[in-house]
């Protein structure tokens, strides 16, 4: 029986061997059981000769798996080809990943469904760059619209805001995944988890989850409080649920307190980023009456 289950595991690994890497071999096993198991069963039935060979030769199978998994990123890290493996995506794949992050569905894990052992750096980098410029531009526009018609106001394109926005967003998109990956790695030594993510996959999830903020930030130009808070809440729910749905399988086998603490920390950092950006860049609302005795709206949220 154990030989049979070993054979099952080995055969499935060979089927996905070209995508397997050290960290996420376990994740590969989980996804195959969920989605593609019928396909592999069919393969097994129609290819009895080949399966017999693999049963005979587990060592050769392991060697081949090692070889194929090593082929993916075999270039040393100081060559250009190494970094090219992180940009191995096509247009439709990027589109699917962005749409998948905008519309999360319970039960569909973003990593297993869209990333599938091919994490890319294109999406996170350019989504962050777009978000930085959109925040700076829309912050300027919203200030301009608020002060429209006031003769004493001279429009100044505040260039410093771009630098601050860039620092904030890029550190969120790269340092928080680093910390989360470290925490998950530490918990993995204490509790055996079935699902574990590599650092690049975590960066991918965080990068693509920021995509929902781009339309939300554009909506923040409208200088009405209700519209702004509505859009921020919707954006937070969508992107927060992407993160929660992705990381819950990785922590649910842990002690309940630790699991809850990690999830709360993830959501809290996300909320902090959104509210912080809104507070810093879109801080002026309708300043209607500049009379000193009756300040209508607070100038900073």
């Amino acid at each position, binding site marked *: 029986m154990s030989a049979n289950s070993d054979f099952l595991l080995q055969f499935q690994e060979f089927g996905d061997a070209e995508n397997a890497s050290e960290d996420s071999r376990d994740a590969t096993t989980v996804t195959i059981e969920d989605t593609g198991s019928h396909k592999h069963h069919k393969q097994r039935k129609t290819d009895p000769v080949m399966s017999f060979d693999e049963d005979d030769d587990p060592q050769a199978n392991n060697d081949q798996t090692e070889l194929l998994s090593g082929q993916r990123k075999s270039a040393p890290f100081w060559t*250009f080809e190494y970094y090219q493996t992180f940009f191995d995506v096509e247009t439709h794949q990027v589109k699917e990943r962005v749409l998948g992050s905008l519309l999360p569905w319970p039960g569909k894990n973003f990593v297993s469904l869209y990333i599938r052992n091919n994490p890319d750096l294109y999406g996170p980098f350019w989504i962050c760059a777009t978000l930085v410029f959109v925040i700076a531009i829309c912050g300027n526009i919203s200030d301009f619209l608020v002060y429209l018609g006031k003769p004493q106001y001279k*429009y*100044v394109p505040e260039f410093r805001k771009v630098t601050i926005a860039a620092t904030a967003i890029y550190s969120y998109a790269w340092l928080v995944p680093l910390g989360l990956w470290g925490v998950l790695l530490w918990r993995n030594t204490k509790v055996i988890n079935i699902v574990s993510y590599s650092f690049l996959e975590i960066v991918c999830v965080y990068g693509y989850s920021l995509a929902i903020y781009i339309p939300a930030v554009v909506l923040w130009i409208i200088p009405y409080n209700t519209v702004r808070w509505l859009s921020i809440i919707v954006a937070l729910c969508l992107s927060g649920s992407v993160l929660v749905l992705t990381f819950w399988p990785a922590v649910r086998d842990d002690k309940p307190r630790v699991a809850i603490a990690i999830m709360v920390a993830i959501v809290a950092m996300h909320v902090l980023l959104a509210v912080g950006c809104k507070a810093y860049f879109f801080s002026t609302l309708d300043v209607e009456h500049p009379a000193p005795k009756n300040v209508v709206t607070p100038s900073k949220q």
Partner: protein
Amino acid sequence: MAEVDDSRKPMFAGLSDVSISADIPVEGEINVPVGTPSQDDEYSTLDEPVKDTILRDLTAVGKKFVHVMYPKKSSALLRDWDLWGPLLLCVTLALMLQGNSVDSKEEGGPQFAEVFVIIWFGSVIITLNSKLLGGTISFFQSLCVLGYCIMPLTVAMVVCRLVLLGGSGTVSFIIRLVVVTASFSWSTFASTAFLVDSQPPNRKALVVYPVFLFYFVIGWMVLTFSPSA
């Protein structure tokens, strides 16, 4: 000695003809079969008047400007790349975009260094992106194309400055908006026409989008320029 020479004649036939004498200077006598034409060329550019040298480079730059104005799928821009044109355009644009001086209280617009850094750093990042996605264009060719295609935006900047001389109300804003939008689309279209052929087929949109973002940001800086009172 003669026997040694005879036995070696087929291999070192030319060597035996060289007479080692103190009168013959070394550089004139050695026959290098390949390098002579280029040596003649380089020698002649040292001889020609400076005006010819400068005019040759200026014509090359000017021809590339014309290629940007009427973008066709020609490879002249890519083949003979140079960075003079981009440098000229970048310095002109940065000088015109320079905001208030340091001693004014307002934060001001972008300073010269900021515009310069954005243009060059942005071009480098876009080039790296296209090479990482598997593009076959070389690094400096891509920098050359991106730099030359800033020209419509520089022209738009000049037009905006002239329009702002007439006033800064709503009408002038609408005129500036139309001009900047037209020139930004022209820039993107021109650079796409040059760059897109060297990219793998399924990733063309992935390469074009950063170029779009780059010219959008520069266009935004041109549009929101307000002169210091």
